[in-house]
């Protein structure tokens, strides 16, 4: 399996999280996604997510992109 595959997985996972929070009250949704990712994603995973977002974030749902500002950016490796 390649790096692309892992990336695809992360995108899928982030979108899955966003799908849940999208159904929650509007004002909590983006913060919900960000808090969840901050709490449960290891820095490597967040780093990859940001790499992907910085490259345009293709495939990520709008709610993930909205939440990105609130997700903790890990220090560079």
């Amino acid at each position, binding site marked *: *399996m390649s790096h692309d*595959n*892992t990336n695809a997985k992360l995108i899928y996972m982030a979108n899955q999280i966003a*799908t*849940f929070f999208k159904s929650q009250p509007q004002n909590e949704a983006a913060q919900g996604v960000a808090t969840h990712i901050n709490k449960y994603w*290891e820095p*490597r995973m967040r780093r990859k997510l940001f790499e992907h977002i910085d490259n345009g974030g293709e495939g990520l749902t709008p709610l993930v992109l909205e939440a990105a500002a609130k997700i903790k950016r*890990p220090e560079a490796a």
Partner: protein
Amino acid sequence: MSLIHEIDYGTPASKSEKLVTLTIDGCEVTVPEGTSIMRAAMDAGIEVPKLCASDMMDAFGSCRLCLVEIKGRAGMPASCTTPVAAGIEVSTQTPRLKDVRRGVMELYISDHPLDCLTCAANGDCELQDMAGAVGLRDVRYGYEGENHVTARNNGEINAKWLPKDESNPYFTYDPAKCIVCSRCVRACEEVQGTFALTIGGRGFDSRVSAGMAEDFMSSECVSCGACVQACPTATLTEKSVIEIGQPEHSVVTTCAYCGVGCSFKAEMRGEELVRMVPWKDGQANRGHSCVKGRFAYGYSNHKDRILNPMIREKISDPWREVTWEEAYAHVASEFRRIQYQYGRDSVGGITSSRCTNEETYLVQKLVRAGFGNNNVDTCARVCHSPTGYGLGQAFGTSAGTQNFDSVEFTDVAVIIGANPTDGHPVFASRLKKRLREGAKLIVIDPRRTDIVRSPHIEASYHLPLQPGTNVAILTSMAHVIVTEGLADEKFIRERCDWSEYEDWAAFVAEPYHSPEATEAYTGVPAELVRGAARLYATGGNGAIYYGLGVTEHSQGSTTVMAIANLSMVTGNIGRPGVGVNPLRGQNNVQGSCDMGSFPHELPGYRHISDDATRETFEKLWGVEISNEPGLRIPNMLDAAVDGTFKGIYIQGEDILQSDPDTKHVAAGLAAMECVVVHDLFLNETANYAHVFLPGSTFLEKDGTFTNAERRINRVRKVMTPKNGYPDWEVTQKLAQAMGLNWNYRHPSEIMDEIAATTPSFALVSYDYLDKLGSVQWPCNEKHPEGSPIMHVDGFVRGKGKFIRTEYVATDERTGPRFPLLLTTGRILSQYNVGAQTRRTDNVVWHAEDRLEIHPHDAEQRGIRDGDWIRLASRAGETTLRSLITDRVAPGVVYTTFHHPTTQANVITTDFSDWATNCPEYKVTAVQVMPSNGPSDWQVDYDEQARQSRRISGKLEAAE
């Protein structure tokens, strides 16, 4: 040390609060109303002779040995069936009673073999005891007359004599010794709830018979052993007792199989285990057990057990036995090398839900303090992580809310995605008992599980939903409750956040959540959903019990929240008889979660980013702890494939067999440079290991397990570890080799450290556990005796939180290529990946995994019962044999995953719960077709497994 003799009070305790005073043999006794005279006498220390009575079941009154006289009353009533009355004066021993009792015993003995000296029950036979107690000195009748004792009578064949039934691997039935007291029959009915035994015939002809005069193996018997335990004679006897003899000492310990956590007396002769007898004071099981805990301990002596540490350079090499010191040094230097080369975060560990709390605590400590990262996870990831997340969000703590005793007060039990008769047998027995007393049952499961319809039990509702639609069904039930005005608003106003409730109520009230609307994709008729919702909301105390059928879905966490919502909206939380109860798979799933096995939290469910918590541990351990969450098991494997994760220490888990998408797991493991497996056997994961550290069984160590009701139970060592060291000591030596200064002399010191750092365990210590027997956390200043029921006066988080639960269809969908939905489960006699149970006689019940398929789907494909079939999903394919049954609906197929050759997880995909990555085991789109043999993968896999199990200098062990 001596043998623990438990007092048998003859009849069950009365629950009445009203007290009654009477005199027995001149002593005044005060007991609850409804108590039998026999029990009252025993309370006063007077043992009335008895044969047919036992406090495990209701009195029957057939042996007539327990007669007493009551002043002013005529006749001699049986003390077991006669309740106490205020002021009566009872005599248990008078000349008349003595005569009658002797007469009764004489009759019994005249139809009983007199081979006491060579009988297996010698020393443990109530018939023998009673003959002694009543002073029986001679028997006037010989065997010349009618009897059941001799095969031939006066030269003729004796038609009344029956041969021994030795069909069950664990116990024998010798009808010649039976006194027809029917204790076994009643134990099977009342304690176990299986109704496998009957008394056939009448009068002198009456005989115990399994099923319709079958042998035990062919009958409905599930081999729980309750009848064996109940039998007062040698008629039903453990084969191990026949083989070894009577035990001489016993030690109380805890079953290492499932989350019920039954307490047992391990009855020993020296270091040899004679038998396991469920302990009546065990508060989870109250003297009952299942076939696994009572009988399936033989794996600890199995020839496959590895007793010496082993190392190899490459996984294609044969294993090389080394000393423990070499093994520790090797692991330490490899892990240091890897961290130097690839970074601190390139290694991690996995804790085990089968090991003790203390061992789990040490593994996470090794990772956090020794490896310097938070890459620790546990196999609870693949079963109950959504429980932790969902209940944590809703209630503020991630554990079941009740004790098992609570079921005795339940009026409506809801079972969702669990198969308790197979997965949690002793709890199932207790539940069935309550159902026979009249409680109602709702089952939500794609499959018609045994509990839906069994002797004297019929579910009021079975909702056979399409796999993957749990959230839709539960939200529909909430819709019915809210829109029909069945919500318990008083409870909600007092205990929950009202504005969150209003938001949620408006959400579930939307018409698209109505049962009529969801029927289209759940497949459950709307009327059933409405009926079930009304029953749960209005039927009295409603309790929800759920299992992996809830959690192992892409919406597992959402489903747990939906369950919490239902309990809150109906006010079914915070008292006996109600609540939300996850049925945990493995014995210490609860404990391993409590002990900080997850990469984002420290012991006691405190997030790793919390400075105060980290500081507690940093001070004690003298290290700095990273404030970032670590990798979860699936993330570790992804990172391994990516090349950033290179070494892992796995204690007591077999991720290659238990985790989904076997090929991906294999690829991840293969990409690592140092895989350390610490286990009893060369498990499937060990095929990819570079170091093998032999593990020890629960019989060989001290520690604690925490069961599904948060009960901390002691595990006590009864024999020396065959491999030399208990697992906690191995982890400690490993830590020392890595330069950590650990010096625990006994697991009790580890528990002391847990108590000192974790508020919910503050008062727990081995001394305290010895005193109380067991305790349910939280156990601290506020709850010194522990907490049988949680959220009594308020939720742990403050106000209960209602959370919207939108149904999202899983991406795993059927289509033309994969038109069927596969769901997976487990069965009674086997346990998880089966590494232990497969190495016991339990295989007689389940020699292989079978695929259950509906007759309609089978016919379409030209499959007959028992045919080899190919089972394929987009992840892979395997072969196994079919089992045609209408337990599963058309379109759904089902299998277990107990045998490595089946490789059911080659089929499962890598979809997982959105919140916790708990794999979606319960839904996989598959195709099924006839086949004529093992798949290529199975053949390759077998060959690779065989190769990788080679040990140099040893002949290959035949499987």
